[in-house]
């Protein structure tokens, strides 16, 4: 059912990683992803793997939740691997019919697979240990300098957090309207693409109307509670760095320096 889809899929538990400031986690994730493209040797990937494994261990999130995120992109990953495997020119290892597998191709394919899976697992560590709300808070805070260039940082963050709140509500609503139209004999499954698209009209019109009504109501409710943009606003849960965040930054810097070192000297 539609309501089973959980966005951001936060995994509730107590761990050091959960307690870290979301800014640390956001920056760490970005650094980790960059590091995957910095290192080029097997030793480099080994270091990345160890780093990732330690973080996962510390987060106390069962490993199967990390892998769950990979299911969705298994297809993309396969394509990338296949393309790299067969289409990279170089020293031929063996060939079947017209397809040739080269040493370089094999290397490329394995590297891509490793990078992609590290990338996915790495970013899912962040989404699994950070609530969507604190993530938007972190983004707002980190992007604050952009205000100088008239980027509506607060507004964008507010929009994201409202969207996150309403996604489950709208999904449930979709489910309900769909059932009601099925009860009136609507058919959302059979037929060709054009027929299917046409069948969506009885679903989308009510859904849009409802979304607009909700938006209207919400805007009024926010105004009634003195909302007037980011100015004059205080925070109930302000982001403050603690000792563990500083340690995390040190560890992160050490890891990143190691990656660069490996790239240069090894």
């Amino acid at each position, binding site marked *: 059912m539609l309501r089973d889809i959980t966005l951001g899929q936060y995994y509730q538990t107590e761990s050091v990683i959960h307690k870290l400031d979301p800014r640390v986690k956001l920056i760490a994730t970005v650094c980790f992803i960059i590091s995957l493209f910095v290192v080029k040797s097997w030793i480099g990937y080994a270091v990345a793997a160890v780093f990732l494994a330690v973080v996962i261990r510390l987060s106390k999130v069962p490993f199967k939740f990390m892998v769950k995120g990979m299911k969705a992109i298994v297809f993309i990953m396969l394509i990338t691997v296949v393309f790299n495997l067969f289409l990279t020119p170089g020293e031929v290892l063996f060939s079947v019919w017209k397809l040739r597998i080269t040493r370089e191709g094999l290397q490329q394919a394995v590297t891509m697979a490793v990078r992609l899976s590290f990338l996915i697992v790495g970013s899912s560590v962040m989404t699994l240990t950070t*609530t*969507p*709300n604190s993530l938007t808070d972190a983004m707002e805070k980190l992007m604050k300098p952009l205000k100088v260039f008239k980027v509506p940082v607060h507004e964008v963050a507010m929009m994201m*957090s*409202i969207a*996150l*709140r309403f996604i*489950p*509500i709208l999904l449930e609503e979709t489910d309900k309207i769909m059932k009601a139209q099925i009860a009136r004999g609507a058919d959302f499954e059979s037929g060709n693409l054009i027929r299917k698209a046409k069948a969506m009209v009885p679903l989308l019109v009510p859904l849009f109307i409802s979304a607009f*009504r*909700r938006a209207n*109501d*919400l805007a*009024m*409710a*926010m*105004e*009634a*509670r*003195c*909302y*007037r943009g980011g100015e*004059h*606003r*205080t*925070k*109930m*849960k*302000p982001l403050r760095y603690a000792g563990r965040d500083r340690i995390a930054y040190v560890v992160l810097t050490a890891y990143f320096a190691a990656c660069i070192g490996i790239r240069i000297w090894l």
Partner: protein
Amino acid sequence: MGIIKTKGLVFEYIRRDEEGNVEGITRAVDEVDLDVKKGDFVAILGHNGSGKSTLAKHINAILYPTEGSVWVDGMDTTDEKELWNIRQEAGMVFQNPDNQIIGQVVEEDVGFGPENMGVPTEEIWERVEESLKAVGMYKYRKFSPNKLSGGQKQRVSIAGVIAMHPKCIILDEPTAMLDPNGRREVVRAVRALNDVEGITVLLITHYMEEIIHADKVFVMDKGKVAMQGTPREIFSQVEMLRQLRLDVPQVTLLAHELKKSGIDLPEGILTVEELTQELKRIYRQGEKAQVQ
């Protein structure tokens, strides 16, 4: 002057057809004079389209009068300088619980108002705690609003308003989308606010049983105040209430029927106990008459 006061309040809006041409003007609120004393529990009754919600939106400065004036604690709502003070002093709870909760966690939602007002962080936490306790939702503070029942969501909305420390709170049909259990929960919470915290309450509803404990009742029809008085005074006019498309509690209706059939009951009976007492009295009298 009372905490909420309106004088000759008129609100008109222009109806337009699809091309945007003016079709006509509708007068949603028509010459309403209201005076609510501090600490009172006031109910506004009326069927859908009677103008009661439009009236409510004036008190929070969401709508502005076409004619006449609205004052909240002495501040004219058209005075732009006072806008945020008015919205802070006259908190508002709306009908649909889903469309007024902003936070993804209960406590964050309650903190939203104080955040907007610029309250310091520590004080926000204090206010959130006391507000959630006042509506009996403190143990749900870490919950996602999507996991709560309708009545619980409305109580969170009420907590969100009290966290702004308003002097009065306006509830615009807060129970219309709830089941009987949820309705009871919300009404109980609202009454407690009035009794314990002394907050002035303006409750807008079409459920008659929710207004039995009000200090004063206004009944609206076609944008005008059609009746006003204590609940008992209002309930004693059963025929009039029916004409205004309003419901009367079964006990009041039964008493009215019995009275019409010649049983000597007073008008405006509100509770089962009252009716039982009265009928018992009449029954005993009959017994005595028999003995004599």
